[in-house]
């Protein structure tokens, strides 16, 4: 698959096959195309050449992409939270769009320590780590079939990182596929089932290049 952003081929050739309940680690230098690949897998961005199927959805078909977007959980560099709303209001809004079960939302909030007083604090006055926890709570409440995480450990303390690891393990345990883009070479090998190298907009199995 080839994906072009503003005349620049961010992704120039990828050929991969992912299985359910697999945790795949995308590693590679900055600007290698990891983020573009994740966006593409989420049904955002347009694929200009090639064929790709995600969860049975054909990425070259708009209707399929629309459906796919409702099935995946994407956590990018941006937190997608509204700074002026409180943690609780953000959770409520996104959970509502996802038609998430209120019980799941409450459990997710508890899991990331967002219940209680923190729930009434505007996101704008949270630390980077707390914001990330809020975004993760939204993803958890949503129970996606495909998790796409872009540098999920960045900006988190040891406890937060452990939380992310548990989250990844739980998700794949529940049958979901998890794709993680990360620079964290100490940490990821223990978490991932597979390692993929992304360099120059191309993706290959680690060691197979």
């Amino acid at each position, binding site marked *: 698959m080839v994906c072009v952003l503003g005349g620049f081929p961010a992704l120039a050739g990828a050929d991969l096959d992912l299985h359910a309940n697999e945790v795949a680690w995308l590693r590679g230098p900055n600007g290698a195309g990891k983020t573009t690949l994740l966006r593409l897998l989420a049904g955002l961005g347009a694929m200009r050449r090639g064929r790709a199927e995600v969860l049975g959805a054909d990425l070259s078909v708009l209707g399929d992409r629309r459906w796919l977007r*409702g099935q995946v959980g994407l956590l*990018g560099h941006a937190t997608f939270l509204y700074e002026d*709303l409180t943690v609780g*209001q953000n959770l409520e809004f996104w959970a509502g769009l996802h038609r998430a079960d209120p019980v799941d939302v409450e459990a997710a909030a508890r899991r990331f320590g967002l219940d209680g007083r923190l729930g009434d604090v505007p996101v704008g006055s949270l630390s980077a780590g707390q914001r990330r926890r809020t975004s993760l709570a939204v993803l958890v409440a949503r129970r996606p079939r495909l998790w796409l995480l872009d540098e999920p450990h960045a900006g988190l303390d040891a406890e937060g990182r452990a939380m992310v690891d548990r989250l990844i393990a739980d998700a794949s345990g529940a049958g979901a596929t998890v794709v993680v883009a990360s620079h964290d070479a100490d940490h990821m090998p223990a978490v991932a089932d597979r390692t993929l190298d992304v360099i120059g907009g191309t993706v290959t199995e680690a060691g197979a290049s």
Partner: protein
Amino acid sequence: MIAAVAGDAARIVAKDLRIERATGVITTQILPFGIVMLLLFGFGVDPALQVRGGDRSVLAEVAPGLFWITVLLALLLVVGRAFAVESDDGSLDALLVAGVHPAAILGGKAVVVAAELVVLELVVGAGAVLMFDVTIGDPLHLVVVMVSTTVALAGAGTLFLAVVAGQRGRDTLGPLLVLPAMAPVLIGATAAAGDALYGAGSGGIAWTWALVAFALLYSVAGIVGAGALLEDV
């Protein structure tokens, strides 16, 4: 499916109104802008100036036009604000990944913009009545004019700003797209509002029908064109 789109649009509206309640951007920035415009018009056009042989001041006579120009300029601010809320932290993408239909995003935004414009119109309109000595001849007609113009402006403003959403130069390009295209609406709204205030003389009910047509046109165009504007096809 329509119910899902409408439900998502309603959630977006409720969320944006919540943000407005928390930040007060409209009440503390856009409304004062409208009032400042009223004062400036008073300075620009001498309130004591009378049309020769007429019984109204020049300012009262041209008030409908000044009113809609104020609303049109405020529209640019309000729509810009509506999109800024989403693009601050990548939430436009997140809305799409949440499975929200593009039409729900644009539709929700248009409803929010329309609601905020109505508030502005009520305040500026009341100001015009108090300060410009405007009299309202036919209130019902005026309501129809204001509603249809507001829907047309909100629909078109959201649609045109979505064309440049997320682009460099959107703050300067947006007005170039919106203002010339809105001129027919402005002309119609001014004539029809003048009609509603001071009685027939500038075209009867025809301009009002034209405004209703514009409202429908831009609403439909926004719903149909949303996908092409917000998705990377």
